[in-house]
C-alpha cells in the first residue's frame, strides 16, 4: 500500500485520528513559536517533520505530550483532549512514547532498570514480567547483552537504542522522536535509523522530527515542512523533495542538500 493510499484509506474508514491539532498557537514570552498549526495524524501513519532550526518543530511534538503547554487551540491524542486535567495528561503520557535528541537515560539505573522503571511504577507490572518485557525490546533493538551495564558505559548509538526500547516498554500507541540522531556520530546514526525503520515496519504511529531525508523517503507516509512556527507545505515524500511548491521549502532543501 502506498503512502497516499494509506492516507485516503484512513480517511475513508472515518477512524478518529491518533493525533489531531486544531489551530494550535504557542508563545515563549513574546515570541510566537507556533502559529495556527493544524495537523491530523491517522493511526499507523508515519509523519516526518522537518524545517530549519527555530521553526518550531520540536516545540510542536513536545506539545503533544505536554512537555510544553500550548496556549490556544485544541490538541487531541487518542480521543483524549489535552487540558489542565492531570488524569487525562497521565493517560496520554502512558500511550505516547518519546525519544529525545540527548537520550536522557537515567544514569543512576542500569539499562534494564531504565526500561522497567515505568512499567513497574506506572503500569503496576510485576518486576519479573517487566524484566521479561524489557529484555524482549532490548533484543529487538539488538543490545540485550548490555542489560546490566549503566548508560555511561554505552556508546551514543547504543544509548539511543536503549532510549527507544525504554519508551517501547510502556507499549505506547504513538511514538514521538525529537531529532533522535542529531547528537550522534555518523556511523552510529545508521544503527539508530535501522531501529526506527524496524519500528515503522510494525505499524507504529510515529512522528519524527529529523533532518535525515533518506529516512523520510524510506518510511514516511507524509512529510511536514515547518518554517517560522507554521506548517508551510506537506505531502508524500516524493512530492515534497522533488517538486517543492514554496520558495521557503526550495531554499531549505537546497541548504540541507548542500550540507550532505
Amino acid at each position, binding site marked *: 500500500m502506498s503512502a497516499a493510499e494509506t492516507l485516503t484509506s484512513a480517511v475513508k474508514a472515518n477512524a478518529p485520528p491518533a493525533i489531531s491539532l486544531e489551530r494550535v498557537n504557542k508563545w515563549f514570552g513574546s515570541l510566537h513559536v507556533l502559529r495556527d498549526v493544524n495537523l491530523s495524524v491517522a493511526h499507523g501513519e508515519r509523519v516526518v517533520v522537518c524545517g530549519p532550526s527555530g521553526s518550531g518543530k520540536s516545540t510542536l511534538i513536545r506539545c503533544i505530550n505536554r*512537555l510544553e503547554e500550548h496556549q490556544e487551540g485544541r490538541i487531541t491524542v487518542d480521543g483524549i483532549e489535552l487540558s489542565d486535567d492531570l488524569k487525562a495528561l*497521565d493517560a496520554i*503520557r502512558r500511550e505516547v512514547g518519546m525519544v*529525545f535528541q540527548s537520550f536522557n537515560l*537515567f*544514569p543512576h539505573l542500569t539499562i534494564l532498570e531504565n526500561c522497567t*522503571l515505568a512499567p*513497574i511504577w506506572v503500569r503496576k507490572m510485576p518486576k519479573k514480567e517487566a524484566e521479561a518485557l524489557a529484555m524482549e525490546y532490548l533484543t529487538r533493538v539488538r543490545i540485550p547483552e548490555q542489560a546490566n551495564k*549503566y548508560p555511561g558505559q554505552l556508546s551514543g548509538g547504543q544509548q539511543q537504542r536503549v532510549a527507544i526500547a525504554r519508551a517501547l516498554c510502556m507499549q505506547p500507541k504513538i511514538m514521538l522522536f525529537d531529532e533522535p540522531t542529531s547528537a550522534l556520530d555518523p556511523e552510529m546514526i545508521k544503527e539508530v535509523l535501522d531501529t526506527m525503520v524496524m519500528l515503522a515496519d510494525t505499524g507504529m504511529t510515529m512522528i519524527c522530527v529529523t533532518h535525515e531525508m533518506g529516512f523520510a523517503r524510506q518510511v514516511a507516509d507524509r512529510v511536514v515542512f515547518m518554517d517560522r512556527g507554521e506548517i508551510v507545505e506537506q505531502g508524500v515524500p516524493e512530492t515534497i523533495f522533488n517538486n517543492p511548491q514554496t520558495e521557503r521549502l526550495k531554499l531549505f532543501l537546497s541548504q540541507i542538500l548542500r550540507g550532505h
Partner: protein
Amino acid sequence: MSDVPADPRYARQAPRRPLRLSWSDERVRNIVWQALVVGGVLAVFYWLYRNTSYNLEVRRIATGFGFLEREAGLPIAESLIEYDPSMTYFRALLVGVLNTLKVAIVGIVLATILGTLLGIARLSRNWLLARIAGAYVELVRDLPLLLQLLFWYALLQALPGPRQALNPVEGVFLSNRGLKLPFFRWEDAHSWAMIAFVLGVVGTFLYRRWARARQMQDGQPRAVWPIGAALMGALPLAVWWALGAPFQPDIPFLRGFNFQGGLTVSPEFFALLLGLTLYTAGFIAEIVRAGILAVNQGQWEAAQALGLPRGRVMSLVVLPQALRVIIPPMTSQFLNITKNSSLAVAIGYQDIVSIANTTLNQTGQAIEGIAIIMLVYLTISLSISLFMNWYNARIALVER
C-alpha cells in the same frame, strides 16, 4: 569468553617501566617529594614532643590522666545525666561531651530540614517565596556565626524576668530564664511506650521493604502509611494504655522569683541551637539548590514522558541523582555544626570545650585538657565522616 584460546600475541601484561635515576623522571621526583614531606612532618612532631617534655620538666608539672579520678567541684547548669560538683572530672567531661552531642545532633536534624525546605523554596516559581528564601540565605551567610550567637543570646537575655514572662499559650512561658514548656510526670509506662515507638519505626521500615519486594512480584503498590501509623502511633498508645495510662500533668508555674515544674530549655542552649541551626541552614539551602539544579532538565522530561507522576519523578529519578551532588558538601556542614558548637563558650553553654577549659584551669593539666577536646571532636567528626562516606559510596554513580 574463557573457552576461546587466547592469542599469545595479546596475552601479556602491560610492560613495567624501569625506574630511571634522574631528576627529570616523574616518578623519582614524586618519591623524593613525598619522602621530604613525611620527613618534615616527623621532624616537627619530634620537636614538639621534645620541647613539651622539656618545658614540663622545667616547670615540674606531672603529666598523666590521673586527675580524671579527682573530685571536680565544678558546677554544671544543665546535664543529660545525673551530676553534682562532688563527682569526678571524668563525669564532668562526660556531661560536656553529651551537651556537645545534644546541640550538634538536634542542630544537624533541624538545619537539614530547614535548609532543604529553604533550598527548594529558592527554586520555587512563587516569586515572593523564592526572594524571601534568597534574602534569608544571603543574610545568614554574610554575618559571622559568633555575632549571630551573641545576638540571639542578647535577645533572649533581653526578655522580661519570670514575673513578667511572655505567656503566648497557657502553660508556656518565655523569659530570660529560658523557655518553659508543660510536660508530664515521666513514669515507666512512658518509657515502655517510647520503646514501642522505636520498635514501631523499625517495624514500619521492615514493612516498607516487604511491601516493595511484594510489589516487584505482583505489581501492586501498597500504601505504607496506614501500617506506619498503626505501628508508630497506635502501638505506643496501646502499650501506654495497657500499663494503666498514667498521666500526671506537670505544668510550670511561678513561685517566688522563678518557675517550678515543667520542661526547661535554657537560654544558653536555646540561643546556641537557634544560631547554629539558622546559620547552617543557609549553607545547606544552597547545597540542596545546587544539587537539584545539577540534575539535567532532560531527566525530568524523560521521566514525565514515560508517564511517571511528579512525586515519583522526584523520588525515583531526580533525588537519587541530586543526592550524589548533595552528600559530600553536606558532610562538611554536619562537621561544621559539630565544631562550631564549641562557640558555646562565648554564651556560657557548658559543652566539652567549656568544661575542659575549666578543668585545665583548675588542674593545670593543659596538654591533657586540649588532648581530650581534640580526641572528642576527632571521634565525633570521624564518625560522621565515616558514615557519610559510606553512604556516598553506596549511591555513587557508575560512569565507565
